[in-house]
């Protein structure tokens, strides 16, 4: 009975959703775009990843781009010592030189994550996408939050600052060395 009522409310909200969806989405993805850039200072890639100290950090967007150009707006912006570059890719390829790979849909997530496994690239999956990447956005209490799979990061020789881990909703810990 209660469950039924709950579902009804949910259904109601889903019906009402399309009207507001555009505004809500735009805010959500603005935040997510900002976060993508903000992650960078808290992540340590292996030295070999960058050819020089001034080489930008490249964020690759796999498939469809939900940010509608907001991410590109951050291009050239400094994050730590490096500038940020944005690339659109159809599939993950090491040769693209991505340090961050954003996967926006479950359809391609499986293959992409499998391809990126072992490579020094931080995979970021959008909320609701499975399987989750090293960092996966979640929506909690109307706020954009994230989970971190530190074990996967460790497998890819990537270090994530404890400050960032601390902010994650859920952390899959790396096994102690």
């Amino acid at each position: 009975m209660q469950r039924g009522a709950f579902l009804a409310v949910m259904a109601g909200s889903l019906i009402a959703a399309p009207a507001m969806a555009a505004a809500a989405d735009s805010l959500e993805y603005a935040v997510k775009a900002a976060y993508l850039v903000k992650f960078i200072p808290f992540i340590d890639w292996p030295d070999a990843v960058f050819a020089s100290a001034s080489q930008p950090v490249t964020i690759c967007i796999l498939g469809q781009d939900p940010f509608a150009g907001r991410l590109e707006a951050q291009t050239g912006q400094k994050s730590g010592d490096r500038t940020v570059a944005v690339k659109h890719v159809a599939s993950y390829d090491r040769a693209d030189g991505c340090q961050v790979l954003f996967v926006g849909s479950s359809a391609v997530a499986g293959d992409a994550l499998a391809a990126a496994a072992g490579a020094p690239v931080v995979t970021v999956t959008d909320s609701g996408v499975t399987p989750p990447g090293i960092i996966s956005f979640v929506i909690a209490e109307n706020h954009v939050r994230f989970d971190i799979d530190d074990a996967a990061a460790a497998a890819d020789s990537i270090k994530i600052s404890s400050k960032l881990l601390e902010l994650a909703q859920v952390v899959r810990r790396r096994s102690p060395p």
Partner: protein
Amino acid sequence: MMASLARKEGWSLPVVAALIAAAVLLSAGVLMAFYEEQLYSAQQLKDVREEAQILAASVTAAIDFDDAGAVSEHLGALKVNPELQAGGVYDKAGRLMASFVQGNAVLPRGPLPEGAAYAGDHVDIVVPAIEQGARVGTVFLRASTEPEQRRLARYAGVILLVTMGALVILVLSLSQAALTGRARQLSAVNLQLHREMEERRKTEEALRQSSKMEAVGQLSGGIAHDFNNLIMIAKGNLRLLRKRLGPNAAQSANYIVSADEALDRAAALTQRILAFSRRQPLSPMPVRLSELVEGMGELIRHSVGEKVEIETRLPAIWWTRCDINQMENVVLNLAINARDAMPEGGRLVIETQDIIVKEAPPEMEDPVSDFIPGAYVALKVRDTGEGMSEAVRRRAVDPFFTTKPLGKGTGLGLSMTFGFVRQSNGYLTIESRPGAGTTISLYMPRYQEGTA
């Protein structure tokens, strides 16, 4: 400097030294407290700043990702520090993300100037939160500085101790100075007391001597007087006996003459005793002692013999009034005494002198209180003989005291002289030291026509 200060203010040196020591101690204490205070404030500021910096470093990610909960958690951890009145974390735009307030503090609105700012009872510290060189936000902490009274209370103990120490030094040195002054006073008083005791002792001895002479004089005088009468009766009866025997006396003449001579000697003895006891009948006449001595020159030379050189200095011209025969006896007696003191020969000086005496000469025998200052004619007889010890000198005028061998002297010569001089209102002094000769001086009052 200390010495001059001490002189100027009339303080003793230890007091000034103690004052300076106390001042040094006090100022050292104040300086130390001030230094401690500075050190403490600096340390507190440093501690709070460090706390702010640690907070800033640890909340960068939380600020970045707008995670107010995480920021609040970090900030909350600082609440355990009671010094912190308030704390706040601001994001890049100066928006307050999380804060805590203890008591009634009010958080300022951002953006805030970095650094430390003192205000009243607290200090505000603002540090930037920086991640990878980029400023992501601001951390604000407000720490209470210790209130004046608490700070004072913290140093009150030290100040009290230092003040007490200074006071103790001061009191000790003051009392020490007082004691020193008191001791000086006491020793002065003690010295005075000793002097007075000595004086009193001398006076008592003189009094005793005087009253002894008085007693002996009265006693012997009384006896001598009666004795003289008895001798006169005996002599008269002897004369009657000789008359009665008439021509038959020739056989017994020797006995009678011997007895008569013995009675004469006894009479002479009683006469001397009477002289000492000042009871002899005197017939005083004005006389110049210089002329008297002058006229006795031959007699004296004859009496003292050839071994003794005689010198006379007779400048005195004042008159005195005394029994001339007795005075001649006295001079002769003194000359003979001098001779006896110089068995191997020597020098005898007889001297007269007109003199105004203001107070009794210290060596005056019998320094009685009735000494009258005034004009005197002095007659001094000085020898270069063996002199007398002090003990002997003191007893020299005692009747029957003699240092001559048994049968050689009667011990009445000087006492008779003394008695005569006193009876004539004069004084007698004896100066003598063993080996340094003896001077006997008679001070006879000056006689002027029309006075008694």
